[in-house]
Each structure stands twice: as structure tokens, then as C-alpha cells.
């Protein structure tokens, strides 16, 4: 019955046979030269398979990687866009989070549209502190919402919001300046000395990018990605669409649907809510705004701008807080932090600064109630009001958005945890890392601190920051050896 069964020989060679059958085959083999030969064939065949199995396999995935990234990006953009606007706000975040990922990925590939710098300046300047230069009605939102005054320090991950009539000028570590219009919300997703990623959730943002060499400078809004190639531009996001205006250099604009395009100096492009684009030229107001913003960015050697104090408590745009060099800015910020009288680096200021409320605005957050401290909008200046609202639609947008976000600037820890948790699945959790850390470090918060720690760990995991994730899970295990998420934490920490 066992005669000449080749298939059994394979099973015999593979040790798949029950011992009884194996003995029968073995016995048959002793008396059948034909099967002995066949067994040799089987062993040869299996040997070749083993060699193939053990061989290294290397494969390049350039094409497949790109295709997958494209599909994922498209799908997310589509998801973001097919929702009604109110949801679209968070939908845009989904896309932005993904685009960030995709962007980082692309920048490794050779054909990637790496943001070329218009000019490269050497040597790289020292990183400046990330700080508010000048602000009115600016708050950082999160677990501890607080009002920010002139000179206030900021950190990567901060989410900033301006009141309807507020505005703010910020300085990034790599020297760029940002101006945030009223009723705007901006996440400083990444503001490193060599890499900048911003998320404009609504409102108007003007950028005067420095010439510093960096990995990238991107602004995300409503699922669109604006990559800085040149230097001065503005982005306005409203429910009616997104507008990008460029005063100097060039930006690459990638809408979630359709082809990427460049917008060059003097041009503006406006996307409607269906991402149909329309081109035009820069308005005079935009030109003024961007040139004012750019002056103090690019011209480190320029003599101090004379300060023309505006009437009343108004702050003349940019002047008092405009540093003339990196070191000036440093001292300015340092002074501001000490809430002293006007920095000594401006002795030439014709402004009788100390007595002016606008000059001491930085003290206010410490004295006044959290919400209404630096509440005055700046007095009309040559560049207002048109500059802050090139898109009339921006206002309704913020008004509308306020239903979603603005009503309670003070978010409770539970709200933060909830939003952070939700953001995990949207790829946007990095915006909450800082708040989560604050919550997690506050042991008095008990289970909330634990939750914050675990969400933070999950966030790193979701962002594929493997080392950070492991680190965070280890911290969790140390803090909560008997905690609720120990299995999960061990699983990742030990991986």
C-alpha cells in the first residue's frame, strides 16, 4: 500500500507524517531503490526551496511607496472635503496631518519638490526664541488657556487664537515673522530652527519667511498645503475658500484636489469651496502688509525704524517690538519676560515709551483677568483695516467657527483629553502633545494624568515616532505599574 508514493516521500522528508506512517515509509525505502532515488529528488527540491526561503530579499518600493502615499493623501483630502464645512474644519486637520506625514516622506525621495530657498545665507543664524513680538487679543488655547502679551514665549505645539479684533506678530526661531489677523486660529505644529509647519485653522496669516536654511516651511489650511519657496506671502482661510497672495519669492500651493501650482511674486490665487482656482494680482493692502512685515525680517542691518506712536493706547504696527538684529530681539524678549520698562535696546526711540500702555502691555496678563487683558485692538494704522481682511468672508468664518471652538477658551482637562483622543485617528494629535504633557505631569489630576500620558504615547505611536512612543510608554509603566493600560504600554515599550 505504501509502494512508490512520491507525495508521501515529501511528507516523510518534511516530517509531517505521524510516526506510524513514517515508519512504514522508512521500511519501504530500505527495500525500494526507486523510492530512494525519488527521495533524493524530493530533498533536492526542498533544499532549493529552503535556499530561497533563507535568502535575503531586497526590493525597492519607490513607485509603490509613492502610489500608496498618493492614494492615502487623496482619500484623506476627499474625506475632508466631502463633509460640510463645520465638520470640514476638523476635516481639514485630518488632511493636514496626513500631508505632513506625506511631506516628510516625500522629502526623502529624489523627485521630491523640496522647498528650494530663494537665497541661501551662510552661516546659519543662531536660533531665536519662539515668541510673540506684539499682540492684542491673543490667547494660547489648551489645558491652561492664557492671554499672551508682547514678548511672551511660545513653544512648538501651541495653538494660538486671536480675538475678532485682535492681531499678533510672532517671531519664529529661524527668523521668520508671522502676522496673525483677527479672528484667526493658528497651530504652531512645528516651529524649530530648521523646520516650520503651521496649521491655519481659520483667518488670515501673513508670513515673512527668513532666508534661513531649513528643511521646510509649510502652511496647511483646509487640506491645502502651501510650501514656501520664496519669502513673503499671506494665506487667508475662510468658509468660502482659501486665498494665497505672494509679495516676494514664490510658494507652491497644493490643494487637496487638483494639481499643485506655484504662485509667484505679485500674484494671488483664490480657491473657492470646490477648489476651483482663480488668479489675480496682489492688492495694494496686501503689498503694504507684507512689505511691512518683511522689513524687519530680512534687513537685519537696517537701522531701527522710528516709532510713530499711534493715538491713544494703540500700538503702531511692528515698530516698538521690531528688533533690528537677533541679539536685539533676544534682549527685547528677555526684558519683556522680566516685565520691565521698555527694553534699553531702543534708546533712540522717539516714543515716550514707558508711560504708554502699549509698551507695557506685556505686564497686563499678570494683572488683568485672563480673557480681557490686552483686549484692545491696535488703533488704526496706515495698514489697517483692509490688510487684516482681504477676504471679506473671513469674518463670517470665524464667527461661525466660534460656535465650535470659541465659546469656551478655557478648555477643561476632560475636553482636552477628549479632543486629543479624537485627534489620534485624524493624524493631528501632535497639536496636543504639549497640553497632554502638562496634564500628564500634574499628578494631582489622578486618572486624567494617566489618560494624558497614554494618549501622548499613542500619539507618538500614531505619528510613527517609534522612539518617542517607546519612551512615553516606558514613562507610563514607571508611573503606573498597575495602571489600566499596562498591557498596551508593555507591548509597545518592549517591542
Amino acid at each position, binding site marked *: 500500500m505504501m509502494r512508490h508514493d512520491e507525495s508521501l516521500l515529501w511528507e516523510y522528508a518534511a516530517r509531517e507524517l505521524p510516526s506510524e506512517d513514517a515508519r512504514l515509509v522508512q521500511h519501504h525505502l530500505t527495500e525500494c531503490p526507486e523510492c530512494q532515488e525519488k527521495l533524493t529528488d524530493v530533498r533536492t527540491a526542498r533544499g532549493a526551496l529552503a*535556499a530561497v526561503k533563507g535568502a535575503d*530579499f531586497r526590493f525597492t518600493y519607490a513607485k509603490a511607496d509613492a502610489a500608496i502615499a498618493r492614494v492615502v493623501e487623496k482619500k484623506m483630502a476627499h474625506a475632508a472635503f466631502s463633509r460640510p464645512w463645520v465638520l470640514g474644519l476638523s476635516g481639514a486637520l485630518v488632511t493636514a496631518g496626513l500631508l505632513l506625514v506625506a511631506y516628510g516622506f516625500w522629502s526623502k525621495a529624489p523627485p521630491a519638490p523640496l522647498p528650494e530657498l530663494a537665497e541661501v545665507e551662510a552661516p546659519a543664524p543662531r536660533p531665536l526664541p519662539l515668541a510673540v513680538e506684539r499682540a492684542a487679543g491673543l490667547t494660547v488655547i489648551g489645558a491652561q488657556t492664557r492671554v499672551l502679551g508682547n514678548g511672551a514665549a511660545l513653544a512648538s505645539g501651541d495653538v494660538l487664537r486671536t480675538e475678532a479684533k485682535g492681531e499678533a506678530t510672532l517671531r519664529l526661531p529661524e527668523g521668520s515673522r508671522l502676522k496673525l489677523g483677527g479672528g484667526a486660529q493658528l497651530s504652531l505644529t512645528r516651529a524649530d530652527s530648521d523646520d516650520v509647519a503651521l496649521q491655519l485653522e481659520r483667518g488670515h496669516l501673513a508670513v515673512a519667511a527668513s532666508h534661513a536654511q531649513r528643511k521646510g516651511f509649510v502652511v496647511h489650511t483646509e487640506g491645502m498645503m502651501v510650501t514656501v519657496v520664496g519669502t513673503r506671502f499671506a494665506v487667508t482661510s475662510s468658509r468660502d475658500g482659501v486665498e494665497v497672495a505672494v509679495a516676494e519669492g514664490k510658494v507652491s500651493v497644493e490643494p487637496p484636489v487638483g494639481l499643485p501650482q506655484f504662485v509667484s511674486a505679485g500674484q494671488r490665487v483664490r480657491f473657492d469651496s470646490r477648489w476651483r482656482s482663480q488668479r489675480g494680482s496682489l492688492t495694494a493692502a496686501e503689498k503694504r502688509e507684507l512689505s511691512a512685515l518683511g522689513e524687519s525680517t530680512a534687513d537685519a542691518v537696517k537701522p531701527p525704524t522710528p516709532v510713530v506712536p499711534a493715538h491713544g493706547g494703540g500700538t503702531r504696527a511692528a515698530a516698538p517690538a521690531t528688533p533690528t538684529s537677533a541679539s536685539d530681539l533676544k534682549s527685547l524678549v528677555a526684558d519683556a519676560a522680566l516685565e520691565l520698562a521698555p527694553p534699553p535696546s531702543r534708546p533712540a526711540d522717539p516714543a515716550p515709551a514707558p508711560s504708554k500702555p502699549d509698551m507695557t502691555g506685556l505686564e497686563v496678563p499678570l494683572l488683568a483677568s485672563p480673557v480681557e487683558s490686552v483686549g484692545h485692538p491696535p488703533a488704526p494704522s496706515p495698514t489697517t483695516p483692509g490688510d487684516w481682511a482681504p477676504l471679506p468672508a473671513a469674518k463670517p468664518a470665524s464667527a461661525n467657527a466660534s460656535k465650535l471652538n470659541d465659546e469656551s477658551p478655557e478648555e477643561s482637562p476632560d475636553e482636552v483629553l477628549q479632543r486629543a483622543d479624537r485627534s489620534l485617528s485624524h493624524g493631528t494629535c501632535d497639536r496636543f502633545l504639549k497640553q497632554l504633557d502638562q496634564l500628564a505631569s500634574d499628578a494631582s489630576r489622578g486618572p486624567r494624568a494617566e489618560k494624558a500620558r497614554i494618549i501622548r504615547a499613542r500619539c507618538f505611536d500614531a505619528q510613527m515616532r517609534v522612539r518617542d512612543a517607546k519612551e512615553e510608554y516606558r514613562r507610563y509603566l514607571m508611573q503606573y505599574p498597575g495602571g489600566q493600560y499596562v498591557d498596551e504600554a508593555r507591548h509597545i515599550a518592549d517591542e
Partner: protein
Amino acid sequence: MSAGALSLQRVIPTPAPPTAAELKLMRLVERVQQDDLTAFEELYRLTRDEVARTLCHLVGRRSDLEDLIQETYLRLLKAVPRYKGQSRFRTFLYGVTANVALMHLRWWRRRREDLGDVPDCASEGRDPEAVAQAAEAARLVQRALATMSAKKRIVFVYHELCDMGPEEIAEATDTPYNTVRSRLHHARMEFTAAMRGLTGAQS
């Protein structure tokens, strides 16, 4: 009486309990199911080597292998909502991969494409001699596999090169267990015969 008709005991080990890697995949799948597509990219990165290698064994190293990898993941993305954890995710993924390979192999057959000299699926290692040997083995294996029908090839590759048991293959390819066994049985004989022919012709 042939061995195919023997009711063989299932001594091939059943799949081990989910490993840490498998659990991680499950978590990613859950996130994809909640529309978190960043998780899908991660899933892709974690599994693409296995998928590429498997596809290579299933269809040979063709210039369009990357297209098949893409196709596999596009289908996976569509299929993920259907996955309810009924099987290991790896099994599910192998099922999708098998379908892509099957379509492709049928298409090639319809085109009566001459397989010619099939390039191998292995690649360079450190020891040149071992590399040469592995390359030769891979070339032979590819040629022998190319003689098989698509369905037999899938079962054979999954069992002999991907360490899948017949139960798992049955589950992945949605085929009765006995059919899998029978295909494996025939595939082994065909493979041995093909290898005999190839090595005999050589020496």
C-alpha cells in the same frame, strides 16, 4: 491508494497565538477602520516586504511587480472594513495577495506570455558563494513554479515558502481544507518533477 486520499492527520502545527507584531497590525487595522489613513501607511510599511516577497514567489519577479504590490494594498484598503478579526490579519492579507496574484497569473496565461528565463526573487547577501547558490536555487524554483497552475502555485508557495498551514491557506483563499490538501499534494509532485527535469537537464 494515493496519499492524497489518505486522511492525513493535521500534524502541521496550527498557527501560533498572535505575536506582538500581529497585535500591532490589529491595532493599525482598527485605526484604518476608523478612517485613520496614516495607520494604513504604517500598515503598508510594516507588511510590504512580506507582500512583495510573496507576490514575487507567486508571479515571479516581473517588471510590474510594483504594480501588483500597489494593487494588493489598494484592494486591502477596500477590504479592510470587511475584516472583523475572524482570522489573523496576516491570513486576511494573504487572502488579498492571493487574489491579486490569481488575477495576474490568469491574465498572463490568457496572453500566453512566454515565461522565458525567469529572474529570481532572492537578491544579494554578503557571502558571494552563498549568494550565487541562492540565486541559482531561486532561478530553478521560479522556473519550476512557473509550470504549475495558478491555484496550485498559491497553495504550494503559501505552504512551502510562507509557512502557512493548510487550515490557514484554506481560510485565506476561501477554499475547502481538503481541496487545499489535494492541491498541495499535486503541487509537490509537480514541483519535484519539474525540479528533477531542470537539474537533470543541467548536469
